[in-house]
């Protein structure tokens, strides 16, 4: 947090570290992150929406595209730092938990670790 010139990277009240839009793409956070979870990425170009993909197979579909090709303009903007911030801005918690159809993905706090171990043991 100290090495971020615009002070874009902060820790929220719940403990999640998030990076806001003031990031200048210097890459200090990526270098210093002990867990290696910060990536420097270009902006992703627009793609056909959900219904076009559903009905006609247009585009790569919803969700993150692994190997996208940024446009020249996006390349000129440069890379920005991104990381998982537990979807703090969404209000209902991490989108991955919301999106899991079988409830396999849950977010628990340390106080529930013992319960989880008990459950696994059984």
């Amino acid at each position, binding site marked *: 947090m100290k090495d971020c010139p615009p002070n874009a990277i902060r820790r929220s009240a719940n403990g999640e570290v998030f990076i806001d839009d003031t990031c200048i793409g210097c890459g200090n956070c990526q270098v210093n992150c002990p867990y290696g979870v910060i990536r420097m990425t270009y902006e992703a170009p627009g793609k056909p929406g*959900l219904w076009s993909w*559903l009905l006609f197979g247009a585009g790569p579909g*919803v*969700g993150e595209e692994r190997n996208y090709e940024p446009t020249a303009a996006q390349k000129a903007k440069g890379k920005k730092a991104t990381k998982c911030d537990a979807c703090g801005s*969404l*209000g*209902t918690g991490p*989108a991955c*938990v*919301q*999106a*899991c*159809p*079988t*409830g*396999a993905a*849950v977010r*628990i706090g340390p106080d*529930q670790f013992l*319960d*989880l171990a008990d*459950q696994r043991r059984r």
Partner: protein
Amino acid sequence: MIHEDILRFRRARYAWWALCLVAMSVAIYATQGGRQRPGGGTWQGYVLGTLGALLIVWLALLGIRKRSYRSTLGSVQGWTSAHVWLGLALVLIATLHCAGLFGWNVHTLAYGLMCLVIASGIVGLYVYLSMPRQLAANSGGLSRAALFAELFGLDRQGRELARACDPVVGNAVRSSIERTSLGGGVLRQLLAIDRSLFMRTDPQQAQPSGAALVVGNTDQRAVIDYVARRVPQAAKRAEAANLQALIVLLSRRQAVLRRIRRDIQLQAWLQLWLYVHVPLTFALIVALIVHILTTFMYW
């Protein structure tokens, strides 16, 4: 409870919803009779039919909700739990709507498609409840990428060991690595069919010219056997030690391949029912629209 399965989500709240809906539908159905025969054309039939049609549309919308990652309209698990329970209720509601009157017409076609969708859904429910545990037990908590990384590591070691061996053995081992078969077409994935091959050269074999033959190597057994047979024929101790190391490596490779193959098989069964469920849903929606339209065309 840290994990709730989709049937018992929030204390089976959607099961109670489904039960109430069915009870209400039975009550509406029971008020029929008298001046109009029970069927889809009475006001009760219209109510039940509208309910069924709205249910069908909402059930199909699960495909949209589960791909709307920004949406905060409930969790996808909640939607899936409701989808399963209300989908089961739908078959009863639709049966009450049509009062059991069937024939060779578009109305029964819509009903039949609906039953097929629900049946494939029940298959899917069984698969979703039983297979994840088997998947976790098989892969030991490793992801597919991690298993492949392990496999490639073994492949690299195998190629280096093969280089240090006799060219014939080296060729056999290298070809067994390169001609390994994993997955494949639909049947090969579902039934975990292994069509691995390797190239063997046997001076004593029926090929007098000493040509190499590409033979079957299902489950890597043939190549392990081939290398093992050469151990007693090894002239030097170092060569024998190399062959032993090769056998160990090939056996480890065999174990990893078995895991990956089983993983592919389980994933394929986990997804196969959707190739029935989803296309039939679209056919059902078209049949539903035609059913409603023609009901009013020949009013």
